[in-house]
């Protein structure tokens, strides 16, 4: 029963605790900040505790039976716990950074409430085994991110927030249709039940299409991606949280949960989805080369990297899935670092346009080094963590043997090198064009921490990869 309580605590401590934050904020803002961090750290610690249970091969399930297939089911397997640790850890670092960043602005209580609530509902998505509850948490994240993107309340911000909200919610509604059509096929929303019923036959194509629509909208994949760069108007820790670490990974995670771990889909999807993922990676990679707003460049890069993750998952052999999972971790760490560095640059120079920046390595050496490390990890240069995830994806394409896709993937990987170096070059090297100073200690500490973790992720690859391998074994059902 310990495991079951752990899952409930992981989800509901942040979700419910978040609502007390504004109250605490009335008395002491410092205490509020600490408690918000504490809520996320509790989730993290409990997830780690769960890890020791699931890694032994056990799966923990809570079922409360309800009629109409609406069983309230929560499951913790390796995949879920891996995802929970990744997102709560990155979330905690981002919260830490927020202490420095958000202290300049108003409505702080609301900010902390939303962020913690967001992370809590993310945990809900991760552990839900029932599609309807998954959908509820999914929409909760959409509402929260709508509020967070428009946090600065300027007219443009609100417009962009609306756009993000409309696209993701529209996608989610289509996905809900998909769930309903699945219900008609099977008669339950519970994935464990659905899995038993659909053991041998694949899911009907129309259902797959509907569900994919929602997933692609959330994970910002072509052609549903343009809300993501636009959402760069949000405060930097929010963009880091939404774009890099957590929100966009929801779609990817749900893809893994539904289409890899639970159900079969027809073979044709293993060609269509990788092709779409490659196209998305390439188009956004090229767009990132043209873009001049630093946060938009990084946002396009996220779209591109999400394409890589989908690519690995949709190829679906053990290397691809392992590569995709590892990618979620490594990309989350590095990309959060990049966004947070961009936040430091933006806050201290008040400039977003990279062509007007330059030479900041002299005035902000730590930020520059952290940015470089994170970029190298995203590019996949050893000894950084991104190297292994990229290599596993290459391995999966080699095994897959579709040459067109392989070369498209190679091209997208080259583009990654180009646009990240371009950004680093324009912002940190060359002539100094503007006055600047290093960010506040706590902000610099968070980005340096992320950069060092990207490095450690490569050198100590054994630990994450072992975890990933046991998750893959569980998902694909191989011993």
């Amino acid at each position, binding site marked *: 029963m310990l495991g079951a309580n752990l899952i409930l605590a992981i989800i509901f401590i942040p979700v419910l605790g978040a609502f007390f934050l504004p109250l605490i904020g009335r008395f002491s803002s410092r205490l509020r900040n600490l408690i918000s961090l504490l809520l996320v750290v509790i989730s993290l610690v409990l997830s780690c505790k769960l890890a020791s249970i699931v890694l032994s091969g056990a799966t923990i399930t809570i079922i409360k039976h309800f009629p109409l297939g609406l069983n309230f089911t929560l499951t913790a397997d390796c995949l879920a716990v891996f995802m929970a640790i990744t997102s709560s850890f990155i979330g905690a670092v981002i919260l830490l950074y927020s202490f420095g960043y958000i202290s300049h602005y108003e409505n702080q209580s609301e900010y902390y409430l939303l962020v913690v609530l967001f992370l809590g509902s993310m945990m809900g998505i991760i552990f839900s085994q029932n599609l309807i509850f998954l959908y509820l948490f999914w929409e909760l994240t959409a509402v929260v991110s709508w509020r967070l993107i428009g946090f600065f309340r300027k007219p443009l911000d609100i417009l962009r927030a609306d*756009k993000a909200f409309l*696209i993701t919610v529209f996608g989610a509604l289509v996905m809900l249709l998909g769930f309903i059509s699945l219900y008609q096929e099977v008669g339950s929303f519970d994935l464990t039940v659905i899995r038993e019923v659909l053991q041998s036959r694949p899911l009907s194509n129309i259902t797959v299409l509907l569900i994919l629509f929602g997933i692609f909208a959330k994970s910002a994949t*072509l*052609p549903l*991606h*343009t*809300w993501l760069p*636009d959402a760069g108007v949000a405060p930097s820790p929010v963009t880091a949280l939404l774009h890099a670490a957590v929100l966009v990974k929801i779609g990817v995670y749900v893809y893994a949960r539904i289409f890899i771990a639970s159900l079969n889909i027809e073979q044709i999807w293993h060609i269509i989805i990788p092709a779409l993922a490659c196209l998305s990676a*390439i*188009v*956004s990679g*090229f*767009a990132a*080369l*043209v*873009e001049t707003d630093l946060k938009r460049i990084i946002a396009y890069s996220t779209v591109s990297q999400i394409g890589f993750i989908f690519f690995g998952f949709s190829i679906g052999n053990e*290397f691809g899935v*392992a590569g995709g999972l590892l990618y979620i971790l490594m990309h989350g760490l590095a990309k959060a670092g990049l966004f947070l560095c961009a936040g430091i640059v933006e806050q201290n120079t008040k400039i977003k346009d990279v062509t007007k920046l330059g030479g900041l390595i002299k005035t902000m050496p730590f930020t520059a080094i952290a940015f470089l490390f994170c970029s*190298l990890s995203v*590019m*996949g*240069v*050893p*000894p950084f963590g991104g*190297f*292994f995830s*990229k*290599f*596993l994806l*290459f*391995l999966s*394409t*080699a*095994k897959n043997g579709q040459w067109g896709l*392989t070369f498209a993937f*190679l091209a997208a*990987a*080259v*583009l990654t*090198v*180009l646009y990240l*170096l371009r950004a680093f*070059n324009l912002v940190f*090297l*060359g002539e100094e064009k503007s006055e600047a100073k290093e960010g506040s200690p706590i902000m610099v500490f968070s980005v340096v921490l992320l950069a060092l973790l990207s490095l450690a992720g490569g050198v100590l*690859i*054994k630990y994450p*990869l*072992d975890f990933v*391998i046991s998750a893959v074994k569980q998902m694909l059902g191989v011993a």
Partner: protein
Amino acid sequence: MREAGLALPILIPLVAGILVLLIPDKLRRAKETIAVLASLANLIIAVRLFGKGVFFSLPWAGFGIDFSLNLDRLSSFILLAVSTFGFLIAVYSCSFMRRRNCLRQFYCYYLVCLSFVCGAVLSNNLLLMLFFWEGMLGVIFGMIAIGNKDAFRTALKAFIIIAIADLCLMLGIALTGYLSSTFEISKIRLPLTPLAGVAFVFLMIGAISKSGAMPFHTWIPDAATDAPLPFMAFLPGALEKLLGIYFLVRISTQMFDLVPDSKLSFILMGIGAITIICAVMMALIQKDYKRLLSYHAISQVGYMILGIGTAVPVGIIGGLFHMLNNAMYKSCLFLTGGAVEKQAGTTDLEKLGGLARKMPVTFACFLVAAVSISGVPPFNGFFSKELVYDAALERGFIFYAAALLGSFFTAASFLKLGHAAYFGKKRQENEQVKEASWPMLIPMIVIAAGCVLFGVFNGLPLNKLIQPALSAKLGGHDYSGFPANIWLIVITVIVLIAALINHLFGVKINGSGLKAVDHIHYAPGLKKIYDLAEKRYFDPYDIGLKVVGVFSSIFFRFDRAIDWIYNNLSVKAAYSASESLRRMHNGNYVVYLGWSLLGLVFMIIFLVSTK
């Protein structure tokens, strides 16, 4: 415990490198001492390990990715060479870098780089090798970027070119690993099926780009002007060649069985021949000491690739021997360049002249290295080139001709360089120039002496170092001693004399040593090509960036078009839909009644039809 000792050549420089980074800026001496001691320790270990067969393995990550190291004849030979150069150049750097900034970074990068090269050579797991191999990317970037104010542009260029090649290598390794279902280098034996051929090509791209062959070369001349000089001597001059050629030999002789008359063999020979000619033609017209040398660093790789690409034993031996020789004379030449830069303050040949008297030791070293690279008997370059010639002639006259032509221009450009820098008019500015300090001279002298030694007693490197590494391929044949084919020697000597005559002729009609090749430079037809090349029209990097630029603007428009659908089209559609619906709700009782009746009719039809 001896097995674990295999990790020491990787660990010692790495730890020393991190240590250097932690030492405060004031303690210059401490950094130099650490660098020299670490590289010395590396050398001692390499000597002790030489010739032994040691295997060491630790589990590292899943999927057959182990931290496994293997020392066989080939890798122990390369390791020894790497450590030797590492030590000598560390000694040299102590003096050369003394008054420079960024010492801390320089030594840190230097040592980390040494560690990674050793790691790549020792790795028995392809992925581990790639880890070290590609890991150098960041170090190279840093090393070039600390050169001068604008060096970061070159650093970017180097980074991008190398990164692209490394990504290709990554794909190649993934393919190879999949095809042979293991990453253990010592276990991989693949027949050259079409798919394995693709894997070979990708691995080859990685190998030849590391050694700096065309078309992955263009960052090297730029780095020569921007990066600190010991970097040039160390990396493009020696270590990268050793590493790249080492891997090329590994893949073409061991992991895959490259046979003569295969397409891949012709591709390799073609790349080799083109690299020789094009790079040496560019070297010929350079007016900067270091830049001229850097083009030779590219050109000489051509000989090695040509030799190995022939896929006959004499060619492979020649290629490896040439790799060793080139690393020696090329780093020696770069070191003389550094001495000149340090003492005279410039490497611009227009401003140099008459240094032979001021810097006699440097000049002597230069002379030895220059005749070696030109292939004058009995220096070491002569013997390795003869082996390559022999193999090239066996495979096709055209390759032999290309190699000979390369030889002619090599000799011509070194006559020009030596004449312009060490003889010629003495300049006012050069009056005060003195001989370089001993820490700089000793490495040069040692390497120059090595050039003579390996030439006169060429059996020493061939029998002790190279032939044992390839004993399986050779079948007991011994290639040391004087070349068997006397005609090859005669032709080589004729070519060298022709180069000398050309130089004398050039000096006579053009007026000075620096302009000695102007009659070739400005020859009709060639001049135009040279002009375009100097303007970088042939730089694959620039061409590539332009292509990428075009594509990115196209795809960016595409992306904006998608965005336009959301921002404008969908909004307009929603507005017009609600507008037309609004018009229908105009409060007119008759219209509403009509709608209701219409709805009723539809409902009745629906109900009736479903019954």
